[in-house]
């Protein structure tokens, strides 16, 4: 029996949805002739599609289950990741950073780093992103397969890893960024629709918002603060307010929305600078809805099933309990949609980084646009094969008990370089005196600092020390210190070394705006 009690009609709905997605990808990619079509959708994307794609890419299948589970265990404070952890950064990105990225006609964020600083900074950031995205693809495939096996109640993990990879790989191979964005539009709509259904039926079952409150109150001290967004600093929660404000809202969130290749690449494919900006604002508006449809069902699950052994069972249990046959299929389609939209984004983004920041930069600088299309597609195949291999490695580690904490380690891995990368981007935009030597030195020092803090905290007993941080999985704190450390080094080194020539900052001037990027 599967966790969600799926019937034949449910599987039929999911099958129709998956085949539709593949068909769209094939239809879009058939006409592609150039790398610009493949990597930037020929700069033809409208704001509404990019905005929905931004949201769909950010919310993976594991997030639907994980955020619902975290809301079950810790309460509404997990919603901070979608609200203060997204909306302000997206608005800032829309009006300050995205216009410059679009105007300069770049394909990747590391490419921007070379224009503003130097080739070393580009290579360092590209390498960090590539290693992270390639490994994360395997992790996402494994995590998705594990959840699919539970939801569907059959099939081996290996089968689901390969099936998911093939579905996503096929439409990303043919359709590139355009297929990724337009399938994301459908995936976003299905995801919001499926989760709204769970929310609506759950609230109706409890007698509305007031009924939910009363049910939570009846559970006593355990859920006393479950509807509080802000958690005091001395609580045993990963979401205490200083971590949310300084780590999430001020560092990781801007680093993600401004510097994450898998996210920013969509806006680079916009029809115009204005459409790129509008996409981010539209995405911010959609983001307001996400905690309502993902986190609140976690609260509904606490009220209805307070004794679940694991918070991650909250969403599947609600689905099995609340939704009739047919609608369960819609939710499963939403779940599959969410996991596919994240995998396809990272697959396409990592192929873009390999093709532009390594192949075109170091192997064949004169490659024409058609050649880049061919290379981009081959790289997509190789990365997908790598992701399947790495997913099986993670599966083996999981089965032999060696994968303990591996997801948290990869979250932490991103925190290692996101903080320093944000420091470099901010200095690049806001301080003309920042130079290439300072940026690269600051970035590397920031990464070394965050890795050192991680090692000191994780293996504190080996050093005969107490843990450095008092909260579980303190990756939000690593990012703050790495950001501050990198910022300080960039400022000092830039001031004591020779300034870069004026052309390194001339393109930041808004008066350099053009309708078509250079």
């Amino acid at each position: 029996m599967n966790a969600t009690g799926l019937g034949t009609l449910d599987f039929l709905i999911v099958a129709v949805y998956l085949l539709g997605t593949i068909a769209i990808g094939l239809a879009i990619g058939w006409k592609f002739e150039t790398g610009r079509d493949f990597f930037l959708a020929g700069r033809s994307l409208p704001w509404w599609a990019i905005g929905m794609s931004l949201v769909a890419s950010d919310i993976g299948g594991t997030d639907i289950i994980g955020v619902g589970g975290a809301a079950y265990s810790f309460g509404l404070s997990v919603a901070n990741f979608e609200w203060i952890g997204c909306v302000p950064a997206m608005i800032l990105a829309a009006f300050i950073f995205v216009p410059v990225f679009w105007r300069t006609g770049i394909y990747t964020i590391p490419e921007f780093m070379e224009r503003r600083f130097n080739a070393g900074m580009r290579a360092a950031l590209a390498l960090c992103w590539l290693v992270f995205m390639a490994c994360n693809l395997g992790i996402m495939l494994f995590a998705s397969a594990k959840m699919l096996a539970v939801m569907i109640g059959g099939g081996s993990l290996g089968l689901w890893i390969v099936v998911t990879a093939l579905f996503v790989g096929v439409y990303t191979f043919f359709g590139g960024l355009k297929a990724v964005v337009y399938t994301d539009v459908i995936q976003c709509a299905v995801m919001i629709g499926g989760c709204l259904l769970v929310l609506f039926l759950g609230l109706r079952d409890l007698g509305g918002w007031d009924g939910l409150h009363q049910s939570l109150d009846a559970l006593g001290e355990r859920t006393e603060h479950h509807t509080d967004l802000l958690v005091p600093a001395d609580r045993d929660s990963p979401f205490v307010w200083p971590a949310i404000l300084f780590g999430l809202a001020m560092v990781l969130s801007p680093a993600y929305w401004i510097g994450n290749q898998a996210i920013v690449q969509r806006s680079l494919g916009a029809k115009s600078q204005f459409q790129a900006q509008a996409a981010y604002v539209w995405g911010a508006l959609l983001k307001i809805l996400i905690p309502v449809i993902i986190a609140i069902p976690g609260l509904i699950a606490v009220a209805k099933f307070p004794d679940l052994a694991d918070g991650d069972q909250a969403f599947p249990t609600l689905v099995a309990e609340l939704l009739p046959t047919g609608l369960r299929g819609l939710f499963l389609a939403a779940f599959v949609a969410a996991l596919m939209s994240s995998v396809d984004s990272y697959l396409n983004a990592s192929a873009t980084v390999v093709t532009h920041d390594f192949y075109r930069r170091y192997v064949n600088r004169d490659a024409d646009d058609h050649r880049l299309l061919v290379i981009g597609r081959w790289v997509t195949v190789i990365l997908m094969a790598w992701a399947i291999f790495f997913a099986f490695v993670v599966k083996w580690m999981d089965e032999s008990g060696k994968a303990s904490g591996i997801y948290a380690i990869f979250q932490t891995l991103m925190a290692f370089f996101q903080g320093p990368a944000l420091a470099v981007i901010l200095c690049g935009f806001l301080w003309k005196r920042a130079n290439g030597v300072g940026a690269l030195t600051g970035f590397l020092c920031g990464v070394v600092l965050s890795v050192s803090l991680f090692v000191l905290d994780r293996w504190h007993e080996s050093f005969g020390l107490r843990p450095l941080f008092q909260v579980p999985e303190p990756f939000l704190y690593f990012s703050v210190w790495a950001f501050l450390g990198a910022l300080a080094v960039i400022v000092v080194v830039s001031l004591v070394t020779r300034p870069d020539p004026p052309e390194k900052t001339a393109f930041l001037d808004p008066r350099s705006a053009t309708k078509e990027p250079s």
Partner: protein
Amino acid sequence: MNSTEPGITILHRVGETLREVMTAVPMPLVRAIFVGLLLALLVWVLRLPRERVRPPADVPSGWSSNLKLWAAVALGIQALIYLVF
């Protein structure tokens, strides 16, 4: 100090001090900080010049093309959420 007791470094002392300071901040003030930051961003958005929030002058556009309006709606809802919850 007991020799078997885990040691502390200057980093631990800095962390402890910061944790004590953060713990001492009353939650109403924390709420005010969150809402205040969102409102400050809202004011910044409302003061943005026309050319940064609208399509180029040669592209026909109505009131709904003013990004300032939609960004203000998003930030306004956020401020309200952090005020209430």
